[in-house]
């Protein structure tokens, strides 16, 4: 099962509905009695809208019974990392030195951000942490960040922590990557590239591929459509049929574990996430 683990990292090409699916996964799990935290790893505006809250801050806040939500503030996450994980004796001058480091070596920043999610997943306060992660174009560098740090630092706590993170990400019982795609050329191509990279690089287990905004098959025969006189009735049927035909080709290449339909006319992100979480039931 896709959500049967402590940490589910949700990615996908920009614009495919990644935040909506992450919110839906969290809503679904919370409804089934799990204590859930959903985390926006970069900009959290999309996630907040899908959860019907105005804004998310760097502290977990209750948005629904059993569901907490937050975004990560990289600067605060860095301070927490230095204090609790690296046990830097005195902040102040030292912190300034580390800030320089974090600003310059992006591996540090990425490690701190993905590290924050991993720590929260192991704290015991939640049964499931869902991360609304950066898009597929950036996700590999986040997943590689702990190993990058290990290669730069020969010994000491930073290295130990990075090693622990790498092991946590690789443990299929603990962590899974969920990839979202729409059945279109570039989202499917990026999904396949990400899957291929993960095949050769043992960074994390892919726990599922989700096809989003799938146009359902049209229950109107080709003959019926061509017998229809020109006008909106015929145009809408043709658009639907043609979109379905194009999407089928990409769905065949994607082989999704879970499929969500295109939701016609839904007005708000909150409505979209609620509907998707209801559809999660059968999955």
């Amino acid at each position, binding site marked *: 099962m896709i959500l049967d683990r402590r940490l589910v990292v949700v990615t996908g*090409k*920009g*614009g*495919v509905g990644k935040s909506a699916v992450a919110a839906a996964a969290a809503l679904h799990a919370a409804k089934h009695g799990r204590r859930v935290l959903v985390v926006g790893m970069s900009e959290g*505006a*999309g996630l907040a*809208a899908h959860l019907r809250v105005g804004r998310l801050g760097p502290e977990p806040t209750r948005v629904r019974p059993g569901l907490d939500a937050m975004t990560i503030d990289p600067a605060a996450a860095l301070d927490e990392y230095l204090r609790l994980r*690296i046990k*830097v*004796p005195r902040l102040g*001058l*030292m912190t*300034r*030195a580390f800030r*320089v*480091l974090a*600003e*310059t*070596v*992006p*591996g540090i920043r990425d490690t701190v951000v993905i590290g924050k999610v991993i720590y929260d997943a192991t704290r015991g306060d939640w049964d499931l942490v869902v991360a609304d992660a950066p*898009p597929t*174009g950036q996700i590999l*560098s986040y997943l590689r960040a702990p190993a*990058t740090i290990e290669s*730069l*630092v*020969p*010994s*000491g*706590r*930073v*290295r130990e922590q990075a090693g622990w993170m790498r092991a946590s990400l690789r443990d299929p019982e603990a962590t899974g990557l969920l990839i979202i795609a*729409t059945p279109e*050329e*570039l*989202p499917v*191509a990026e999904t396949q590239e990400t899957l291929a990279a993960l095949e050769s690089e043992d960074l994390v287990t892919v726990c599922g591929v989700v096809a989003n905004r799938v146009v359902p098959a*049209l*229950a*109107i025969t080709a003959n*019926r*459509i061509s017998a*229809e006189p020109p006008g*909106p*009735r015929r*145009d*809408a*049927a043709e*658009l639907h049929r*043609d*979109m379905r*035909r*194009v999407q089928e080709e990409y769905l065949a290449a994607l082989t999704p574990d879970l499929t969500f339909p295109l939701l*016609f*006319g*839904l*007005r*708000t*992100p909150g409505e979209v996430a609620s509907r998707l979480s209801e559809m999660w039931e059968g999955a």
Partner: protein
Amino acid sequence: MTTAIVLVVGAGGVGKTTMAAAIAADAARAGARTLVLTVDPARRLADALGIDVGNHPVAVPGMDQMSAAMLDAAASWEAIVRAHADEAVAERLVRNSLFRAVADRFPSGQAYAAAEEMTAHAESGEWDVLVVDTPPSAGGIDFLASPRRMRSLVAGRALRWLTGPGIPGRRALYAVTARPALKIADAVLGGPLLEDVAEFLLDLRETYDGISRRSKQVERAMRSAATVVVTTADPAPIREAVRFVEELPEWASPPGVVVFNRSLPAEWAHAVAEPKDALDANLARWGLEAERQGDVRAELAARYGVEPVVIPWLAEMPASPTALADLAETIITFEE
């Protein structure tokens, strides 16, 4: 004659690259020598243009005056460093173990390299119109902000703290001020990481004069550009579009046009009162979507006073440069 630059901005996944190519095809058909710079052309777009899009401009068959090239983000950090630092420093930077990590993960650097490339094409005198499909990170603001961010990276907080103001002998100064703190920090970290970072930043600072001068020319090119915001009626792209409408004046000209891609005919809304058959039922659900889209466009137009241009929802992308040009006919008019 100066080159007219058109910057096409918007969220990922809205058809920005296709719109950029369409605008370019339309300009070329009107007789302008046109180059479209794309970031990541889809296979289908390359097929529609009939070429393999590479790092150098290639003429598009079937559309006189139109060429296409790719903005090469990967190779470009090295190009920036080699352009703006002397040979020995550039070599040391490129070989620094941090260089790859920084180059891979500092998006403003890639965006800036793309912006420098754009400026060079604009200065070449070979083109009347340059259409730029901006890189996807943060939908294009990164691209527009990259000259300023680049300057603050090579002369920013971190560097000032390490090296003090840009005066001769700053390496010596660094040795007595910041270095001792870094050594203590490195002992905690478990390796000479911070010292390496400091060396790296000191070398990077060598590029400051060059980047400072060039980045201002890049900014001027951006300010002179016309901007086109591309979106769909979905909430996330709309959020990005609103951000552009609000923030563009800080970086470039305010958007002349907001293009709503994947639009359904307005008359589909409310076309069916009571569905009598499957064709009606299908039109009714698409009608709900058409209605929602219309409301979103009207709200954006009312709130920001922008003129929405509607591009129809096509199941498949246009298959030829001419079909692309037809798609863009309503977007922008180029004066002779």
